[in-house]
């Protein structure tokens, strides 16, 4: 078995220690004992589930996210000042990680020009339009969930669960993939790999997941006559 494949979550998270910068896509929960974390995640949890448990446990010092929304634990922590929160436009958030992973220290974007997001940042005109300089966003760890992974760390995602995961994997020094299915080396057609194994340092197989639906929206079945 490849050295990348870890027997359990605890082993997969080895070295995640105090003060770490951690990017989290859609990932389960894990008790590492680490604290003073910088948590980089789109929503940072919701409904008391997922990363909301990290917030409640008091192990997070800083959050970089795009949307607070229904995350009551984060609203509370923002209000009492226990967690410092940086809110970033979503496209800038992912592009900062993509840049970090691609060896690009910064980039100019039209997003946020003329708003609080651009305050204190360098702006520059290109062909008559103003852009703001945004910097790469790195992390120590990325925790991402994949549908399938092989022992080299090649990964395939399922539907809209892909979101930030590939960019996070490239932007972190250690990307840890939690996969629903661990497949054999060679099981993927090379054309079908979503994230090549070079970006993934550890793989842990977690077959059981509690998949929470935040807003269950359905339409009634058509009536059969």
């Amino acid at each position, binding site marked *: 078995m490849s050295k990348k494949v870890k027997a359990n979550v605890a082993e997969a998270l080895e070295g995640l220690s105090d003060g770490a910068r951690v990017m989290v896509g859609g990932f389960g929960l894990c008790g590492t004992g680490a604290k003073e974390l910088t948590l980089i995640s789109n929503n940072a949890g*919701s409904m008391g589930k997922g990363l909301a448990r990290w917030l409640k446990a008091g192990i997070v010092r800083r959050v970089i996210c795009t949307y607070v929304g229904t995350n009551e634990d984060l609203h509370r922590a923002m209000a009492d000042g226990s967690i410092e929160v940086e809110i970033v436009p979503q496209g800038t958030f992912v*592009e900062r990680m993509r840049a970090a992973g691609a060896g690009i220290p910064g980039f100019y974007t039209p997003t946020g020009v003329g708003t609080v997001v651009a305050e204190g940042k360098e702006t520059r005109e290109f062909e008559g339009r103003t852009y703001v300089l945004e910097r790469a966003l790195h992390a120590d760890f990325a925790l991402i969930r994949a549908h399938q992974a092989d022992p080299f760390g090649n990964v395939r995602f399922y539907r809209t669960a892909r979101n930030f995961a590939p960019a996070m994997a490239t932007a972190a020094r250690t990307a840890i993939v939690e996969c629903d299915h661990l497949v054999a080396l060679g099981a993927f057609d090379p054309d079908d790999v979503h994230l090549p194994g070079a970006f993934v340092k550890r793989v842990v197989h977690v077959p059981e997941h509690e998949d929470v639906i935040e807003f269950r929206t359905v339409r009634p079945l058509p009536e059969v006559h």
Partner: protein
Amino acid sequence: MNLGIGLPTLVADHLAPERDVWLQSENGILGMGPFPYEGDEDPQIINAGKQTVTIVPGGSTFDSATSFAMIRGGHVDLSILGAMQVASNGDLANWSIPGGRTMGIGGAMDLAAGSRRILVLTTHTTKEGEPKLVATCDYPLTASKVVQRVITELGVFDCAGDRFRVVELAPGVTLDEVRAATGAPVEG
């Protein structure tokens, strides 16, 4: 085309199939379909509002960097967004009310900055009766000078610099009623 969270999502129910409209959801779908039939919902197929949805034949799923390349790179023809305030010069404020709870930015600033055309769909006034169509936004901006058109229950209006210009009034609505409910000059 991308539909913002809230009122704009209702547009999906009124799209004629022959219009060949492809809905984009910024969390990574092009070709978003209607809500699933009861029992078919999948927690890993959701829209940007975190509601369970479906994907139409020909649809695709992708990561967020690709999704925002589509948005910021001008590959989305139209975004229909909600608003807290919209100014006659096209300034849009739809993410934060001073003194209120900050919900976050999400994809709003990228959609506003990157879509080829921005249409705002909103109630004409707040619940308290304050105009949402104003001369200058005093809420934090989402983007500057991006909105071309505003549709409310009172009518359809174009942002025309220092004024709104009436494109169409809702049935039974007079220009005086619109002017009384608007915080900027309205040209008939």
